[in-house]
């Protein structure tokens, strides 16, 4: 056993040291696996970043009411009388001002995206201080809160970074109305940072919404209160709404970019096949390049197993180096890259690519598969070619 190990170690060392002789072929294999890993990671990081932006926005303890069948906030509606009914629902927490309920409006306005200089949809949310307090992690990073009853608004940090003209102190025109940016807020990077917030009553007035709202948020006594709330909604014929935990609503919305991850897997798997063909070429060349060496070693008593291991180790080394290069490139170019896309309510969601350790593992695993397959068959040949044939072909 120990001879086997020391033989293998010696052969591995020889293989690695002979790599510079096949420099370009070896680099081609490293490059091919690096590209496969980088492409896979880019798509996964995109999907992951979007998911994180959505999921971190939702709270388990907040019930989110939208009209049944409306799927997204934009399509929902709730009249003032319906909001009053929701306030009477059991399971909702109360404080000195009454039930902790936030009726909100959600309208679409246009902003100029910095990256394309094209107009894109932004959500303008109408709410009051109660609603603001329900957002976990809310902080004003600049300026102050809007004053109720005025045409002041506060802007999410994501909007400021991706769109033109939303800096503190700017005036913005939407249609006939002019708004003044009095504050910039952060909610820890989640989807609310892609929004503009203003007083709900002002928006009702400017957008001819009367006294109606679109969605309602309410703080629950505990996450278990949801059952009681939904029972109440069903028993009240004047309500056409359903309640879900805010966290599950956003988790559902976060899946809308999962097609990017699927696309990434499909594309990188197909590319991996191409890279594999290149890697097999490299490894077969390596075996024929060292045919003389392998034959000599086997003639002086090295086992065929050590020849096998030597080639396998070479392939795995090249693939792993490739995956590290690819991961590093993906990390440098994509991690934290901020971009925006259309979310569930037809509005832009600003999010950052996020490369988690878990994703790196996936990338490296893919490279290891390439390394293993591309090493196995040539290694098999190295181990099995009769010594005499190897001597002849090596000459």
């Amino acid at each position: 056993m120990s001879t086997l190990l020391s033989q293998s170690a010696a052969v591995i060392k020889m293989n690695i040291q002979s790599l510079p002789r096949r420099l370009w072929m070896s680099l081609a294999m490293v490059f091919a696996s690096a590209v496969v890993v980088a492409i896979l990671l880019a798509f996964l990081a995109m999907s992951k970043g979007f998911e994180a932006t959505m999921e971190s926005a939702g709270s388990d303890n907040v019930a989110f009411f939208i009209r049944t069948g409306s799927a997204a906030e934009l399509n929902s509606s709730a009249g003032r009388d319906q909001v009053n009914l929701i306030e009477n629902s059991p399971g909702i927490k109360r404080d000195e001002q009454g039930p902790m309920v936030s009726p909100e409006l959600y309208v679409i306005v246009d902003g100029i995206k910095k990256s394309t200089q094209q107009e894109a949809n932004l959500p303008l949310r109408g709410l009051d201080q109660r609603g603001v307090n329900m957002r976990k992690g809310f902080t004003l990073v600049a300026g102050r809160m809007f004053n109720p009853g005025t045409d002041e608004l506060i802007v999410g940090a994501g909007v400021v970074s991706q769109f033109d003209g939303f800096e503190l102190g700017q005036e913005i025109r939407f249609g006939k109305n002019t708004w003044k940016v009095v504050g910039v807020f952060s909610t820890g990077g989640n989807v609310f940072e892609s929004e503009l917030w203003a007083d709900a009553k002002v928006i009702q007035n400017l957008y001819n919404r009367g006294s109606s709202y679109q969605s309602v948020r309410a703080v629950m006594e505990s996450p278990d209160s949801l059952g009681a709330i939904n029972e109440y909604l069903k028993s009240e014929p004047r309500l056409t709404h359903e309640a879900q935990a805010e966290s599950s609503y956003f988790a559902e919305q976060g899946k809308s970019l999962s097609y990017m991850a699927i696309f990434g897997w499909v594309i990188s798997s197909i590319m991996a096949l191409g890279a594999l063909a290149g890697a097999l070429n490299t490894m077969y060349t390596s075996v024929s390049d060292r045919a003389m060496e392998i034959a000599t070693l086997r003639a002086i008593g090295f086992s065929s197993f050590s020849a096998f291991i030597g080639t396998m180790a070479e392939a795995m080394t090249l693939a792993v180096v490739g995956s590290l290069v690819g991961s590093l490139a993906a990390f440098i170019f994509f991690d934290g890259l901020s971009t925006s896309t259309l979310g569930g309510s037809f509005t832009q969601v600003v999010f950052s690519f996020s490369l988690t350790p878990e994703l790196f593992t996936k990338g490296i695993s893919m490279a290891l598969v390439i390394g293993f397959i591309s090493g196995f068959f040539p290694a098999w040949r190295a181990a099995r070619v009769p010594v005499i044939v190897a001597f002849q072909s090596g000459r």
Partner: protein
Amino acid sequence: MKDFYLIYKNLTRKKMRLFLTTFAIFIAFLIFGAIMTLRSALNSGIEMSADNRLVVMHKISFTNPLPYAYVNKVKAMDGVKDVTHANWFGGYFQEPTNQVVTMAVDPESYLSVYPELVVEPEQLENWTKDQSGILIGERIAKANNWQIGDRIPLSSNIFSQKTGGQTWDFTVDGIFKGNDAKVDTGYALIHYKYFNETQAWGGDSIGWLILTTTDPALNEQVSKAIDENFANSNSETKTSTEQAFNKAFIDQIGNIGLIIFGVVFMAFFTILIVVGNTMVLAIRERTNEIAVLKTLGFESSRIFKMVLVESCLLAFLGGLFGIGGAYLIVQGAAKEMARFLPNLILDEAIFGQALIYMLVLGLITGIAPAISALRLNIVTAFSRG
């Protein structure tokens, strides 16, 4: 002819290498064909837009309605040929995730503004007469397996019926096709009048206006006139060409074009390196033979050509299989993806591009080894061997 025999022998001397290299090229062109088709499908809305068609919507956003009276006001303006209007119905079939893009329109004027939509005259007549009828696009019909005469309940995620509930029953009266395979038919049309009378919110409002100008040269002038006319009203408008409107919508999803270009470029570059290396290696192994050929009197330029032809043959061998494979995949995926994507078509333009890239790949991978073969000195080659 003799040269071709030699090239053939050179190509096939190592069967495993030939297979692996061809396979790598096959993969590159498979990705190229599939991705370019996807890109052209996503951009078909831009490509297929008529150059004299304008879209008028509310200045704040397309979700804000416009008053119905705007239709006649715009119709009376100079340079305007036909005007029609549409309302977003927000339709889905049974499950909210199973979206059916449905618009409430005025049948006659809508089809005159969109002449690329083709309906059998008999079906069109039935639909025009039938208030609760629906005209569905071919792609939707395929995706859902709907046929003429089917009763389909469509729910709206925005509107409610006056009588309660959010589901309307429609009869499929006809199926429209495009006069070009690239025209998207992934939506359905219902009667605006019926929709407006039955929905609970009431109010004669429309989602947006679509109009054609008498001459594309007037586009700018007409857009300006419309927007100025409604300036300072309660519903200010924003008019853009159909092309700009569709492009802005695609751009909202993000820079798809750049991502796709990036993937194709990287795939190509990788394959280029893999194949280029293999070619260099293959020629280096043949140093001796090339020296023999030169000794026998083969001109250097003839050998140079032979090497290039060999690398080009390799590129076309893998490339043609690859683009063929992409064609088969696209054919297979077109029906599966009908629910989500516009018509997937691998057309002559993409095939032509692929041929050019095959030639480029063949020349680039062959040029370095061909030059070294050209310059090969017989004496040093023999002494090295």
